């Protein structure tokens, strides 16, 4: 704890992730903290802490006073491993129901004790000690709500139509991916990474391949590196289009959604032709690509770039200049730079607050080192900044693709890997910039063909933390818009 305090004073103000660990009966339970400096997010440091009190009452001091985001990360570790964080005010279960028995990510967890429940979870079980005790009017949003972008459950305390407090409630799509990874081989896990943040599936999968390649000390051939980068950027455009469309729909503009989906279909066509899948491209594999690109790929992408530029102008004409939309977005939901860093809000939302955190520029991976690319930064931190930065990023993604599409190197598309992939012993951490922020992959390997522990850092989880921060004192109608402007993907949060 003192060590972490010192690091915090030394400028490590960005807590990337807290990875809960079960090192087995000898070493006990504990966590790994990943830290970085906000002005240099490439420079990371990890701190390992072993919990005291054995397996019965494991406990650690809380770091939620140093980093705001630690509060929710500690809740997650508590939920999965049963570690108590002394000093954390709110240690309810995060994903699982209040009546869940046991801690699923411990190695000695017995899955046969929990069955499909037949009754709804009561408010008391969600609440603990009456979180909303003094509030008069508490409204449920979700989990079945069209504007929630998935199965997020928000409980909102209202005063008239002004939001006073928001309590997000996760877990309605918690599939236990991290536990499943422990029994799957590395090539099998690849199929699960696509399905976390399905809108940036190709990017997440790319990240996992990079983590494995880093551990195996191999590199994908140059052709694969460039094609992967193009796929990532196309995925990002598709994701931002959908994010833009659904945000506009949240504000009542259904036409914008139809326009966004129309352009997205063009990208889906390109994906389908080369990779065989529309939404789930399943294209990167450890050591390269699953197959070579389709002969039409380059021509199609070349045709897509001017088309998308033209349509982007149309999108601006349709919605950006609309006085009603501008009026609603300006001055609403300000997220300050300090809060964005403390909450770990990476990606477009963080960059809209002025935080230089795009890994493509500050810690280039894949082919991003070869291209001219400057990340988009805005300083307002308001809803409009978060809205416009997505459209600007579509433009910069097109610029990246433009530089790469004519320069795809010849050669093989995949490195030969062994039939059974075994990672060497050790901990590996890899981050990639997906459409919502920094997606992190932590792998602990013991040298087997299956990993000992896999943890994914979800950029969407911190975005919901940001919603909790910016929603109070706004109107309830704007709560939906704020959610749209943050553009979170719930299955990535719940994993």
């Amino acid at each position, binding site marked *: 704890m003192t060590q972490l305090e010192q690091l915090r004073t030394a400028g490590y103000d960005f807590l990337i992730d807290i990875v809960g660990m079960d090192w087995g009966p000898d070493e006990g339970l504990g966590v790994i903290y990943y830290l970085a400096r906000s002005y240099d997010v490439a420079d990371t440091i990890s701190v390992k802490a072993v919990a005291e009190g054995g397996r019965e009452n494991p406990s650690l001091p809380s770091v939620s006073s140093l980093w705001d985001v630690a509060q929710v990360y500690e809740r997650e570790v508590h939920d999965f491993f049963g570690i108590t964080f002394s000093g954390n005010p709110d240690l309810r279960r995060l*994903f*699982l*129901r209040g009546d869940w028995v046991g801690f*699923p990510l411990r190695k000695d*967890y017995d*899955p046969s004790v*929990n069955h*499909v*429940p*037949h*009754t*709804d*979870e009561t408010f008391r079980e969600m609440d603990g000690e009456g979180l909303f005790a003094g509030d008069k009017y508490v409204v449920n949003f979700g*989990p*079945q*709500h*069209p504007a929630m972008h*998935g*199965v997020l459950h928000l409980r909102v305390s209202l005063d008239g139509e002004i939001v006073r407090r928001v309590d997000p409630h996760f*877990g*309605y*799509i*918690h*599939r*236990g*991916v991290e*536990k*499943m990874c422990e*029994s799957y081989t590395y090539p099998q896990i690849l*199929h*699960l990474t696509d*399905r976390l943040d*399905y*809108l940036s599936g190709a990017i997440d999968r790319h990240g996992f391949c990079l983590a494995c390649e880093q551990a195996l000390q191999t590199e994908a051939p140059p052709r694969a590196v460039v094609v992967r980068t193009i796929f990532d950027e196309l995925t990002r455009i598709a994701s931002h289009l*959908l994010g833009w469309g659904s945000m506009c729909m949240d504000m009542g503009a259904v036409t914008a*959604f*139809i326009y966004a*989906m*129309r352009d*997205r*279909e063009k990208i*889906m066509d390109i994906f389908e032709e080369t990779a065989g899948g*529309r*939404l*789930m491209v399943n294209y990167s594999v450890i050591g390269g690509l699953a197959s070579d690109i389709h002969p039409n790929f380059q021509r199609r992408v070349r045709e897509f770039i001017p088309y998308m530029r033209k349509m982007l102008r149309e999108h601006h004409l349709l919605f950006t200049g609309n006085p009603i939309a501008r009026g609603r977005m300006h001055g609403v939901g300000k997220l300050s730079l300090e809060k964005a860093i403390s909450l770990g809000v990476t990606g477009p939302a963080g960059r809209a607050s002025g935080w230089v955190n795009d890994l493509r520029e500050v810690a280039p991976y894949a082919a991003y080192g070869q291209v001219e690319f400057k990340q988009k930064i805005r300083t307002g931190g308001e809803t409009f900044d978060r809205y416009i930065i997505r459209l600007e990023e579509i433009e910069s993604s097109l610029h990246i693709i433009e530089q790469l599409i004519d320069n795809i190197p010849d050669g093989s598309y995949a490195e030969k890997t062994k039939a059974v992939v075994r990672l060497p012993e050790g901990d590996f951490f890899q981050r990639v910039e997906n459409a919502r922020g920094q997606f992190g992959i932590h792998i602990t390997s013991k040298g087997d063909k299956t990993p000992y522990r896999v943890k994914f850092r979800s950029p969407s989880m911190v975005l919901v933390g940001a919603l909790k921060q910016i929603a109070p004192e706004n109107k309830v109608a704007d709560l939906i818009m704020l959610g749209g402007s943050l553009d979170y993907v*719930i*299955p990535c949060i719940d994993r």
Partner: protein
Amino acid sequence: MEISRRTKIKNIPYEEFNDNEYLEKYVAELQQNGTNVILTSFSDLINWGRSNSVWPLTFATSCCGIEFMSMSAARYDFSRFGWEVYRNSPRQADVIMVFGTVVHKMAPVLKRLYDQMAEPKYVMAIGSCAIGGGPFKSSYHVVQGVEEIIPVDVFVPGCPPRPDAILYGMMQLERKIKVQNLFKLPDQPKL
């Protein structure tokens, strides 16, 4: 054959559909005790209307929901088939299309949504997760297919299924609705 007349889908011949045997068996079951000519033709008329204006509930938990969005957008446009609009309240919906994984915590919610829908109601399980747990079958927190919770009429496999596949599944449900006797709807199975 009489059945082919009643399950007519525009521009697609009866023979081109899969699972015709299922439908024939279903009709035979429904007509076991004989049919009333007047009521049957009245049923046919109403079913013609019913099957062409089925409104789905938006129930999307994960990935497949994005294909649902594609399906409702301009290229695939399910409004062409009279499925028109999706409803956000179960009380106004005719069919619940289960897109995506259903987990333990969501199971009671799905059951409650189903219970809130008005009869006659239908369920489509879309995507491998909704059919049988899909890639998450071995998880500790995933329901092994929605049939554990609610009865399913049509399954559409895929991970995620293409919008065309979902449209085909919708047509199959339309055919099923067309042969039903409005005055004697089948009992809801006990689970």
